[in-house]
């Protein structure tokens, strides 16, 4: 890793020397831009090295250490489907079903059509005891694309439609020729807009709590002395209904409702 850093520093200095006499006024801006790119590359190189180290720990069977290593990379703010997938694998191998499911779900939000993520998520879900909330069929269908992908699809249809309408204003003779295309784009815009609305509603309004501690006791009220409502096992996925201070109200797959401390769950967006 040190070699890579030195190499990057040398390259940066060389480019700096070249730019300085040539571009005069633009020099400072170029240097700033270059510094940002260089810093980005350095960060990426560091992350890649840390990722490899974590992978080696996993390969050596040190799953808890690997999970910690993946977690540290995630704490830097960067994330990728592979990183979350590996983190989930390490958590699962460490016996943390809930953390594994949460990480698989996060990976799935970034790469919803990744069959490996789906396979491992299903496998881990099968290990979870007790009732759990599962996506409905339409939610699964919506989940084939990320919210951003749905957004881009709807926006693309919207742009195409209005640009087509503008073109028809400029060249009215195109009107009859583009009638079917226009109809299709209108339909596509409406449909993709509706789907986007559903997915956005799912993303912003509904949340899923994944239990990350063994045998979390859901209580009838948001305080420790409240009666036990039900027990949620590690890895159970619950619908979030409400929040009060450090407690969330959840419902399990069988319709039971209770309050859980936030520290016992990991809260994820619904889509």
């Amino acid at each position, binding site marked *: 890793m040190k070699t890579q850093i030195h190499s990057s520093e040398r390259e940066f200095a060389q480019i700096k020397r070249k730019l300085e006499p040539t571009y005069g006024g633009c020099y400072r801006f170029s240097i700033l831009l270059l510094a940002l790119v260089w810093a980005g590359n350095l960060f*990426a190189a560091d*992350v*890649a090295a840390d*990722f490899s180290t974590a*992978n080696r720990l*996993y390969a050596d069977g040190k799953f808890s250490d690997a999970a910690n290593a993946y977690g540290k990379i995630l704490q830097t*703010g*960067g*994330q*990728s*489907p*592979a*990183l979350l*997938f*590996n983190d989930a*694998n*390490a958590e*699962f*191998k460490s016996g943390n079903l809930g953390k594994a499911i949460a990480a698989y779900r996060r990976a799935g939000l*970034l790469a919803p059509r990744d*069959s*490996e993520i789906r*396979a*491992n998520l299903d*496998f*881990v879900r099968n290990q979870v005891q007790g009732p759990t909330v599962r996506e409905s069929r339409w939610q699964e269908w919506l989940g084939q694309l990320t*919210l*951003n992908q749905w*957004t*881009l699809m709807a*926006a693309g249809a*919207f*742009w195409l*439609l*209005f*640009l087509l*309408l*503008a*073109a028809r*204003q*400029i060249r*009215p003779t195109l009107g009859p020729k583009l009638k079917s295309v226009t109809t299709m784009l209108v339909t596509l815009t409406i449909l993709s807009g509706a789907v*986007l609305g559903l997915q*956005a509603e799912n*993303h*912003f309004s509904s949340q899923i709590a994944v239990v990350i501690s063994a045998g979390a006791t859901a209580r009838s009220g948001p305080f420790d002395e409240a009666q036990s409502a039900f027990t949620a096992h590690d890895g159970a996925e619950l619908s979030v209904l409400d929040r009060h201070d450090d407690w969330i109200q959840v419902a399990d797959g069988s319709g039971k409702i209770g309050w859980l401390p936030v520290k016992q769950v990991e809260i994820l967006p619904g889509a």
Partner: protein
Amino acid sequence: MLDRFCRIVILVFAAGFLITSGWAASFTASLDRDSIALGEQATLSLKFDGVQPQDAPGIPNIPGLQFQYVGPSSSFSFINGQTSSSITYNYIVSPQHDGEFVIPGMRADVNGQQLASSPLKLIVSKVNAPSAAAVNAGDEVAFLKFEFPKNKIYAGEAEVGQLELYLRDDIQNFGNFQLTGTPTDGFSPGKIAELQSQRRRVQVGNRVYTVIPLAVPLTAVRTGSLVLGPFTASVVVVLPSQNDGGDPFFRQFFNQGQQKQVTLATDPVSVESLPLPEKNKPANFTGAIGNFTMTATAGPTNVTVGDPITVRVQISGSGSLDAITLPPQDAWRDFKTYPPTTKLNTSDQFGFQGTKTFEQIISPQNADVYELPALTFSFFNPEDGQYHTLTQPSMPLVVKAAGATPMPTIAANKNSAPENQTPQDILPIKDNLGKLATKSSPLVAQPVFLVAQAVPVLAFVAAFVWRRRTDSLANNPRLRRQRAVTALIASGMDDLKKYAAANQPDEFFATLFRLLQEQLGERLDCPASAITENVIDEHPVLRGAPAATLQTLRELFQLCNQARYAPVRGTGELNSVAAQFEKTIPGFQEMKA
């Protein structure tokens, strides 16, 4: 006196101790019966009196006899002040064949004492199938029959023989049926199963018997004269008690019956096992015997050199499905082949009927391959004694040159989850980090993105407005002329200034006159050529115009007319006229047309 008393007491205690402890520890071996029939079992008891070994003694290995340890039993007695204790280790003895067996004397070392037992003799008599006369007379409580459907069989051919247990109708119950001998030399036996659905009652002689059939799947593995049986078995039956005492009415309800162990045997069955004929034996015959059909599919059929093609061959029918192998296909020389996987789905309980599926991966080695050659499979049908060859026609393939594409590996991707198979573990981690992204809010929640969506709407609105104005202009000739004249005036003013600067009075006034005509013509909605100075006084529209404007118009027309006669004028005067015209234009344009 005291010494004498003490001596007596000591002697009494010593005598008691000697009596109670048993003077002589003993080890005795005994059989419950000295003579049994083949298929029956005897019980061997090893009894230790006065001592207790820590473990059950070992039994010497005696060919033809099997010993099964049952467990110990112990006894303790106190009779007339005498105590005795013993422990007995019990073994079930099962003979494997008839004959005379000697169980040698055994030795046991118990607490340092060397104990020995006497040798025992066990006579095992051969069991013969009952005679037909005995069977017909109804004398046999139970008997066993074996039937094999063929007396000639080909080596490798599979058939199902049938053992039938006949139980006389007066048997109240039966149990503990055990096949004690299943000699099938030259055959490979399968799992014997009861054919429950084929239980029946038959009349044999003057008695009715219940028949319990058992299927014995057999595959001939050797040629020559083979003998099946005699199969031997034992069964415990419950017969009505012979005690005739008591009231007959109550006896029918409370007769518990008496148990009887019956030894059974079948007559041996001779079978001639024939070798497969060498005549007309196909070259690719691999030993499949039975009657089969074949189907084959291959896919994908549009591939690149080196790509895997899965050839699925299904062989269905009856016969020794286990023994079927996919013959090597010589015509596949242009393909790299991998060992096939097999799956057997049987439709009967013996595995003699069903479908065997082979899945073989092959990959074309060059782009000249245009078909998957015909696939052949040969088998020997014992029913007609002939070899048969099934041929699956060739299948067309499209094989493209590989180019720079690397050869694919046939082995499954380490990260791929096999379909229709329950995974045993999670898929392994990914080696490639992929593109890192920072956490950010979704696009749909980003203001910049939302504002950007106004762009196409604005473009459309702009186009719409432009269209409306264009259409409006197209439908209004006066407006169109007005705009054209406005443009003409604008360019004409430049010309006027240019001519004035160049001191070109003729061109200047000609241009000025034309501009006046165009402007007035547009305002008065008449051709420009029809405009003269007289129009100022005659046209009704101009009558309502401001007097100053009309006066300026007159002056400009007069200047134009005068210029024809007195053309020489200075640049300054021309500029002055141009300025006057320019100043008057707004007044013209404001006139109501």
